[in-house]
């Protein structure tokens, strides 16, 4: 019989991660859908690559580079209990191949239906705001459902739902941006030129990238995660939260695509205002949601480590550091260039130990708690060899504050230059 303590599982946003083989019927069907999506999007890509090879290569390279920081950020959200790379790849590929392949004909058809059942004016003003979010958010949410069908046990916290949802959204965002960039090249009618690709990269990748599909997908993923994990809540509450998450993704997308506030003008300040008005509320919402989900997951795993009461494995001052993303990063920087990677390895080892302890608490561990503990001790020894006793963050210095302010000023300046280069200011 499994032993499930209420304190760890019954009332938490987190359940122990249980390693399990993928469920076969769903795996094969999802792989088949990925193959079909790849063929369909391959035809789209081949058409562009045949006509505009340099622009296509530039678009793929630029947006692939853009994907890297997003990927790192999203996967780092779940530092304590990392998701398996193959599942993250499936989520990304679903967004980039399956959701896009379904959305291109689906959104166009729905927009036409709005024109037919309403009017061309309605379709012109609200078609993009209603058709694309409806079709695309459904297609992307199906990707999260597909992950659940393949590996239900891997989605064991609300944060896991956020991560998979964001990955599906990221895949969609990158491929959609490439298609838009090459569409701009075709529309320009100047042959194989890269200027439209650069303009699209600045507009869709740089200015709109933060509050785009990755963010929408995270909303939907949080809803699905809650539905799966909070088995202590009534069915109606869980379903309601799932609808709220997916509805939040849809509403954020509708707001972003809507013609609201377009009357503010085309100047740089007006563009900046519209970006903030439409993008900031969903961004603030998802930051709050992710922070809450992260803190709950961190409390769950760090709680297991706290009970060890063994400073060789984790010290009292390291516990709050491990529970916070910013403090984990600060502890690495605090260790200097030589200690950065060692501290990271120690934190990873502590996280793996916590995950294994959570599995052991409900009898699904593979019995490797001792090995994980040994790994932490080895990293502790490596840290001691550098003259460091523990991995903690120093109090924030005036230099760090000045660096943050300077970075913000540079980011705003770059944003302003980008807006101006697009014909704004």
């Amino acid at each position, binding site marked *: 019989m499994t032993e499930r303590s209420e304190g760890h599982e019954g009332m938490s946003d987190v359940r122990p991660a249980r390693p399990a083989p993928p469920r076969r019927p769903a795996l094969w*069907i999802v792989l088949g859908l990925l193959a079909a999506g790849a063929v369909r999007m391959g035809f789209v890509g081949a058409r562009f690559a045949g006509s505009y090879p340099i622009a296509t290569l530039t678009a793929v390279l630029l947006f692939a580079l853009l994907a890297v920081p997003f990927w790192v950020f999203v996967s780092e959200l779940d530092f304590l209990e990392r998701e398996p790379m193959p599942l993250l790849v499936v989520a990304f590929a679903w967004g980039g191949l399956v959701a896009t392949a*379904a959305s291109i*004909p*689906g959104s166009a058809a729905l927009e036409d239906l709005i024109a*037919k059942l309403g009017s061309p004016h309605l379709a012109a003003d609200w078609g993009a705001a209603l058709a694309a979010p409806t079709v695309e958010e459904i297609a992307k949410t199906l990707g999260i459902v597909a992950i659940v069908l393949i590996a239900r046990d891997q989605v064991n916290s609300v944060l896991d739902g956020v991560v998979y949802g964001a990955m599906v959204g990221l895949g969609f965002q990158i491929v959609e941006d490439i298609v838009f960039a090459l569409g701009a090249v075709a529309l320009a009618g100047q042959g194989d030129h890269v200027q439209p690709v650069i303009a699209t990269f600045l507009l869709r990748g740089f200015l709109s990238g933060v509050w785009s599909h990755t963010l929408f997908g995270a909303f939907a993923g949080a809803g699905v995660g809650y539905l799966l994990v909070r088995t202590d809540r009534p069915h109606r509450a869980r379903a309601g939260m799932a609808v709220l998450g997916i509805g939040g993704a849809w509403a954020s997308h509708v707001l972003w695509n809507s013609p609201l506030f377009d009357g503010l003008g085309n100047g740089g300040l007006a563009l900046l205002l519209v970006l903030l008005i439409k993008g900031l509320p969903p961004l603030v919402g998802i930051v709050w949601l992710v922070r809450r989900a992260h803190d709950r997951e961190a409390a769950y795993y760090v709680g297991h480590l706290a009970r060890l009461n063994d400073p060789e494995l984790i010290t009292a001052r390291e516990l709050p550091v491990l529970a916070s993303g910013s403090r984990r990063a600060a502890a690495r920087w605090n260790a200097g260039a030589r200690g950065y990677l060692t501290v990271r390895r120690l934190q990873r080892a502590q996280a793996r130990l916590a995950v294994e302890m959570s599995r052991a608490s409900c009898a699904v561990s593979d019995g490797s708690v001792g090995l994980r503990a040994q790994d932490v001790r080895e990293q502790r020894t490596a840290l001691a060899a550098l003259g460091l006793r523990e991995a903690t963050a120093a109090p924030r210095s005036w230099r760090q504050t000045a660096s943050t302010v300077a970075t913000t000023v540079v980011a705003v300046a770059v944003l302003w230059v980008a807006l101006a280069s697009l014909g704004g200011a």
Partner: protein
Amino acid sequence: MSGVTRRQLTNLLGALAVAGVLAGLTFGLPAIDDALPAGRPVRADEPYPIGAGVTVEPPHGAVLDVTGTRPGNNQGSVLFRLGLVRYSIVVRPFDGTVAAAAIGLQQRITQTAGYQVTGAQLTITTHSGIAGLQGAYAAPGRGGRYAVFVSDGYLIEVTVSGADLDLGRTLPAIEASTRTLTAADPA
């Protein structure tokens, strides 16, 4: 012997449901769209607003296709159908010359496999005085005409396509319609 377990069956049904919803989005929505008529009657000889203040008088016998019609303040498009002939006008912001606009449109036409521009370009002027260039293109079994105008920072692109026989019959009315293009007074 163990056959298919209840868990596997649920898993299979769930995956099939996902595939079903996807199929609905990919093929179902376009099928519903195709099943509904796109044509709307439109009055000839009455200026039709395309977008950005540009209007055109539709040719006699034309039907408005709402799937290709998107009016707007800063840009817009309209699609008329005369039987099997497509008559499309697109308006969008543009800061180049009419010659550059014509080259751009020619390039887009010839990007489609089998399409090529035929003959020389001729100048054209609408009744309201907007000057432009027009030309022709051809594909196996099909023909087409194009015209481009630049007025007050906006590009107006006209494309007409259809089977040669249909095109020959409807072209006079379409050319007459194209000459009714009017841009809003910038003042």
